[in-house]
């Protein structure tokens, strides 16, 4: 596991396309690698945003996961909500890897602010 850590950020950026459409308040995430089983369920998307993205509030959004095309669609009613998630996604993958590295180095404090994840 340790050996692939340095390349994780690049792997994530390469594996996931994020397309933002401000005109219809929609964010598309396309997973390029073939996934065995389901791509994700809606709850997992919210957990991901909270755990690695620093999201600390409930944001109303419609989550649609198309397992065939491997496209996840996040649709918002309010521009403010759309902007918040867009901002979270800008750094989410880098944050995820940084948190992983920090905890592997024994830093338990870096996860202190992550809310309880009920999964």
């Amino acid at each position, binding site marked *: *596991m*340790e*050996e*692939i850590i340095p390349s*994780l950020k690049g*792997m*994530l950026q390469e*594996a*996931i396309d994020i397309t933002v459409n401000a005109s219809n308040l929609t964010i598309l995430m396309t*997973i390029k*690698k073939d*996934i065995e089983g389901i*791509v*994700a369920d809606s709850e*997992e*998307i919210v*957990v*991901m945003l909270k*755990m*690695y993205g620093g999201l600390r509030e409930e944001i109303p959004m419609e989550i649609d996961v198309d397992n065939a095309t491997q496209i996840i669609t996040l649709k918002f009613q309010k521009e403010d909500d759309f902007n918040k998630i867009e901002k979270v996604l800008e750094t*989410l*993958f880098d944050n*995820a890897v940084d*948190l*992983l590295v920090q*905890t*592997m180095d*024994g830093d*338990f404090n870096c*996860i202190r602010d992550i809310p*309880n*994840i009920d*999964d």
Partner: protein
Amino acid sequence: MTDPNAIKNNPFKELGEIPEKKYSDGYIVDSTYIPVRDGVKIAATICLPKGLSPDSKIPAVITQTRYWRAMELRIPFRWILDSMATNAPNPEVVTSRGYALIYTDVRGCGASFGSRITPFSEDEVKDGYDITDWIIKQPWSDGNVVSKGISYTGTTAELFARNNHQAIKAVIPGHGFWDPYTDVAFPGGCFDNAFIQLWSFLGKNLDLNNPRVFRQIRPEAWLLTKGVKPVKSDKDLKFFHEALGQHDANMYVYEHTLTENFRDDQILDGSSFDDFSIFDRKDEIERSNVPVLAWCSWLDSGYCDAIIHRFMNLSNPQIAILGDWTHGAVEPANQFFPSRTSVTPTPKDKVNAWMNFFDKCIYSGGIQGQVIYYYTLVEEQWKKSNVWPPIGHDYQKWYFSEKFTLARKKPENDIGEDIYKINFRATTGRNNRWWALLGLPITYENRAKVDEKLLCYTSQSFEEDTEITGQIILCLYLASTHEDGAVFAYFEDIDEEGNITYITDGQFRLIHRKVLSKEPPYKILIPYHSYKKEDSAPLIPGEITEVKFGFHVTSVLIKKGHKIKIAIAGADKDTFLRYPSEGKPTITISRNSVNSSYLDIPIIKKEKN
């Protein structure tokens, strides 16, 4: 980890160069349930080399775990990594070398059915036999099966040999115990409260598929995983939930040991710690004559002693390795070089070395005899020996003397003693050799500050470089104000600048002090204490008694100009239970011509040219 320049006697080099890959296109993963003799279904994940032709036959490596054979990763990591990416041994390496890799959840754990009353139960061991039968019936199997693992899986690998199945050709127990009572649960009769409690807590939550437990203990695992991976064919998770339901009947060591003290106390279903030890099952492992490669490190709990005891007592063809890394060799652990960050060899190179051992055992007639490789700290060199203790081993006495000194000369005064009120706030922290079993880094820093709370004795500067290899023996003539108590003693190096570096330690609960002259259950090089109830006795307050016990094995060079120091405590509050549970004892250590407390230090005499 070890100095990359330490080439001579380096076991990883001596196991051979890494050959060309037999398969280089990666691997395919499948999973299934394997039914065993009593109908329990064992969850298994199988990794095979990609491109294996239908008529190809290959051997299999099996790892049997109680910590989830495969993880259901969280997104986004699931989008880039396969479920086996976090596993050791690395499936990429193992399959590229032309082996199948089988991971199983032992019964009562992960996605397997059944329940567990004790770890390493007879049923758990026998499952290995049935799984081997299943493996050799697979169309890809060449009829050879080997096993390896680290920690729990290291012990399951060693016990795998006990099945005496003709297909089993070699085992690699990494960082496993020999005697669970002294190596991990009750070192020196002192209860390792912290680890046993956390390990039981972790196990219980794993068996109930609750990843939240990781948040407190292994946050990196919590960030990565959302639970154990179900078996692929179990699409509606019917079996998965049924299996988890059966785990409700599991029992855990901590709740049954907290009130126990003795080696012969019954825990769980009436078993004692000896019942799931290796030494108690030694005869069956020897009957298999399966070659064993056992490896561990100096600072990993009492598992360092396990390597020595296995080497001295198990007659199987054997390679033993003792180095300077953390539990499982994830990080370096050399207290003299705390700034080292890289692991040498890399985990991948290490697995390749293990695969070379398996190749030897399957394709080249195995190994002959026994050899131990050990890394001498400060000297930063690998040594190798066919016997333990190594040739040249001798003891050097150092007496506790006036003005808190250690001297070679026995005290001549009729009187002489030092009084110490036990400081129950003394601690080695949570990055010590015992917490290391949870995969944590090992650091013994700031000994000067810690030693201020302890009773210390320091030698003069050494006049020549001196190698200490083996187990130090401490003999104290001690009186206490209380009937119960413990001694925690730290052996340290002091350099010319006054920097104090921990080398090793020993701990001992005083009620177990009776040294027995009868033969111990296995060969040891330190005073034999049975830790049984019948041999225990409370101290008589105020009466001087002899307390003699061994430290954890080490190998270190004390350089010319350096000093040695012994620091004595009566508690290690973040790890061990408090003895006595109440009260504040004061101990008196005699150091006079009648009662001469001393250290017996195992040195290696230099060869004369």
